[in-house]
């Protein structure tokens, strides 16, 4: 009988949900991305279809503000994978936007980027 061992270190598949800039950075770093453009229901239906393929979800917290369906879906998402809500730069206070994105990429995706 063949014993199949599952790797202890499964690949961390990351999905980034945010604006085009965050999406682009996510894709450049090897993650997948969904862009939120006020398309609330479409986003949630896309997430429901594909979320089982991921271990980590990074998303802009303002999507929860805007989109009731996403807000209601977040508790289920938290049970399925690691969720990392991050503030959109425009609400993170008086900050340098480029520096903010750089720090996010460094922190969550582990790479350095230059604009």
């Amino acid at each position: 009988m063949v014993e199949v061992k599952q790797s202890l270190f499964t690949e961390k598949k990351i999905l980034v949900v945010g604006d085009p800039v965050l999406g682009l950075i996510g894709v450049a770093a090897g993650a997948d991305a969904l862009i939120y453009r006020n398309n609330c229901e479409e986003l949630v239906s896309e997430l429901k279809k594909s979320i089982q393929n991921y271990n980590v979800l990074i998303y802009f917290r303002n999507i929860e503000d805007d989109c009731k369906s996403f807000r209601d879906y977040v508790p289920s998402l938290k049970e399925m994978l690691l969720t990392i809500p991050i503030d959109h730069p425009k609400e993170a206070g008086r900050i340098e936007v480029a520096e903010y994105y750089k720090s996010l990429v460094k922190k969550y995706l582990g790479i350095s980027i230059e604009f």
Partner: protein
Amino acid sequence: MNRAKTFSQSVEYITLENALSMLQYSDIVNAFSSMAEKPWAGKVLKRVTTSRYTLIDVQRDIDDFFIEKIVGLVDETKNEEARNCLNSMISLSELINIVVVLHNLSVGRKPATIFPTPLARKIPLASPEEFDIHAFRRNVDKVFTGLVDRFIKNKKLSTREIALALHKPVEKIDKVSNYRVWRLIGIYHDAIAVRLCRMFPDLLKEPLYPLIMEDKIFREACNSDLIELSKISSGYRRIVLELFDALTDSLTILKGIEAFDLATVLTIMSLSKTLVGGEVEEKVKRLVHLMGSSVILKLIVLSVYTNTYRVELQRLLSKWLK
């Protein structure tokens, strides 16, 4: 310690599961007996099992329980910013209660309260002739004494004083320091303003400053038929459309301005899910849960007592309480 406290606090709220379970019963005794572990069930059970009661008695017991918790929440909150936010929301609710009480008195109706606030339990269900307006004035928060004084003097509500009173509760709320809380208080403020200008159309002649709604939709919300308003599903900020969506669902159970009140509470309950971190967000979230639990429980009691709108309420709560 904190975890234990959080757990005991969340037991006070009504969950979707609780609500759906209670709606399965055809009488109040059994509905509340099924919730015996909930601290709010005891007081109601004592009343409904030991004496004759009216719907208003039960609804007052529910309000009393949650008002006590709201007062406790404010007392335990030492953080100034969190306290300002709590006071802001409570004052907005209080303003509605004060205006409704004074308006009812001016047209010879019994005083009534809409939202659970510290003032609400001090308002006797007296006839207009027996109502002690000076005692009422002493209980009113000092930001609203001008409004009451003008009423005592002129025997009618002043729209100028209402407009001023609407502005005061949000003076100290800062958009930059906590955007998410500002947003929730902002839509609550605007909904309260709409509620008031629907009661007093002349209020629109006064300077009003909606925080979230654009001027066009604010005026439309003040003037339009509620059913027409509930049909608006695009063209404005999502947070405003969410209020109209809640209104659509509320209109399946309640009529007129009561549906708008319910929609207001459902909207802020849903938005409170976005509050997660820090003392300010936690305290505001707790206040919204306490207010919302009171409103929803009273609605359940109404449905069970009158044996009406059970299916509609199940549908509404399944959407907004999850």
